[in-house]
């Protein structure tokens, strides 16, 4: 292990813990400041108070203000309505595709994987005009939840297929061959043998896609224009334009917007990190 382990040396361990605490505070300073501001009164703010503990904490008032007097609850609801179906759609499409790419030999497999990589690294700007025209003219779903769901499902499928592919490849070949010899069909092998074995990978893909889709800003500007459909990222920006210097309200909204992915992340951190680093380790 590098650097040399310090566990079991009480002196060093305590010093390390203090260093950890200090560095974490500095690292998360922006988040702490926002959390603190979200519970300040406007009087405190106008005096230029930022660091002191709020003198008249307005924690409940500020959050209640945001949740009752703005479109924020709507935006949050929209984000869920867009994100959850996108996660389910992406997992379904990419698990099937990844199984074929990992376990059925056919010419052009490598090319197909390459296309998924290249497409996934493309800047959104290179897709924007045709995708927008397509949802307006061909599908007639511009400014609906479905437009965002379909796009996110398609785009995230590229990334997820690559991710799941690295996990399905590790399923022992013998297991699949013996099922084949027993006359089990490929679809049933996928469903009965492979899927149960890659459940952790599916969880990893699900948390990552949830975070990516929830946090998307670009497509919620491009494919949506009304408050009834707008997800929370674009919603936060439009509220900011409205509230200008009401930083206590903006901070509270920012915390609300960040809360769902952060919660999911902490609940499933092991899967999140496995998914994020699987590419690094399979190289």
């Amino acid at each position, binding site marked *: 292990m590098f650097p040399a382990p310090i566990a079991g040396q009480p002196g060093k361990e305590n010093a390390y813990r203090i260093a950890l605490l200090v560095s974490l505070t500095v690292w998360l300073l*922006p988040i702490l400041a926002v959390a603190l501001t979200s519970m300040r009164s406007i009087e405190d703010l106008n005096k230029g108070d930022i660091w002191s503990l709020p003198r008249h904490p307005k924690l409940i008032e500020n959050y209640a203000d945001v949740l009752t007097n703005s479109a924020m609850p709507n935006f949050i609801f929209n984000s869920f309505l867009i994100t959850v179906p996108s996660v389910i759609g992406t997992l379904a499409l990419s698990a099937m595709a990844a199984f074929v790419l990992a376990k059925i030999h056919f010419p052009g497999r490598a090319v197909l994987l390459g296309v998924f990589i290249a497409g996934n690294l493309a800047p959104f700007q290179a897709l924007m005009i045709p995708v927008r025209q397509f949802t307006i003219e061909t599908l007639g779903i511009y400014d609906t939840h479905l437009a965002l769901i379909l796009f996110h499902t398609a785009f995230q499928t590229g990334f997820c297929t690559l991710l799941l592919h690295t996990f399905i490849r590790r399923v022992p070949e013998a297991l699949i061959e013996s099922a084949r010899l027993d006359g089990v069909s490929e679809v049933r092998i996928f469903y009965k043998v492979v899927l149960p074995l890659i459940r952790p990978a599916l969880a990893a893909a699900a948390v990552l896609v949830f975070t990516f889709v929830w946090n998307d800003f670009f497509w919620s500007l491009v494919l949506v224009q009304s408050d009834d459909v707008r997800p929370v990222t674009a919603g936060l920006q439009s509220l900011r334009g409205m509230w200008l210097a009401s930083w206590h309200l903006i901070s509270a909204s920012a915390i609300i917007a960040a809360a769902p992915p952060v919660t999911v992340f902490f609940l499933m951190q092991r899967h999140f990190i496995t998914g994020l680093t699987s590419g690094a380790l399979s190289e």
Partner: protein
Amino acid sequence: MTPVSQRSSRLETVLAWRSRHDRVLSAILLLAPACVMFFVFVIWPIIQTFRLSFYAWDGVGAKRWIGAGNYRELLNDPVFLHAITNNVIWLLCYGLAPIVGLAIALFLNQKIRGIRVARCLFLLPFVISQVVVGVVFGWFFSAHFGLFDKIVAAFDLPPMALLDHENTAVFGVIAAGLWPQSAYCMILYLAGLTALKPELIDAARLDGAEGWTMLRHVVLPQLRPITYLVLLVCCVSALRNFDLVTIMTGGGPYNSSTVAAYYMFEQIFLSFRYGYGAAIASVLFGMIEICVIYFLWQMTRREHD
């Protein structure tokens, strides 16, 4: 009535046919939905964008073929050239992310109780939406409430209002981007550090190597594949960034902090120049693919060494 043997042999042929074709059929069946969706929403649009970059189009009327006209105009467009310069500044500054990320990863590569929570907290900036990061940092640097200027004032320096000045705005935005990017690099390096070969480390330690020497000659060479991956993701996110620029400066003041991704968006939604926007997008796509191909080539080349 057909004899039994004949019937069973027919059955065998049918079964053989089915198992042979079952694989092909199910392959197609399982692969098709993903491929169709990805083709329709990703691959085909990229091709269309490239084609559109040779036309003049306002998004409504007829498209007019103008050959390389858009690209010729780009070469003489001072805002576009400035945007590309800023993209290069982003690329160079994002070189800090792997360094910071590796430093934090080395710091966190210990096995004590609660280390998992600490790692998660360090990764937190990456989990939060860039819109939130942009809002937070926009406030951090703002002239009126900005924490940054309060810190600066503590050192007896004049207030900077970083985002309000043409020379500094782009660096303010990049600083915000480096925060989540370093967290991402950190988690990749941590995975790499956990996978180090212990026998090599122990052998080097017996030879008296430690600290800096150990890092340079034993650890970093083993981390090389990860370093290429880290550099690749840093290049791609540096060039792709749109959210932070939009939220923090809107490309301003006076286009000073604009980047290709943002300028393209402006050309479409403010100037309705679809063909010109498509040309900008194509240039950006080209820049990113060059980075990708370079690093993938480096990775495979090292493997063959």
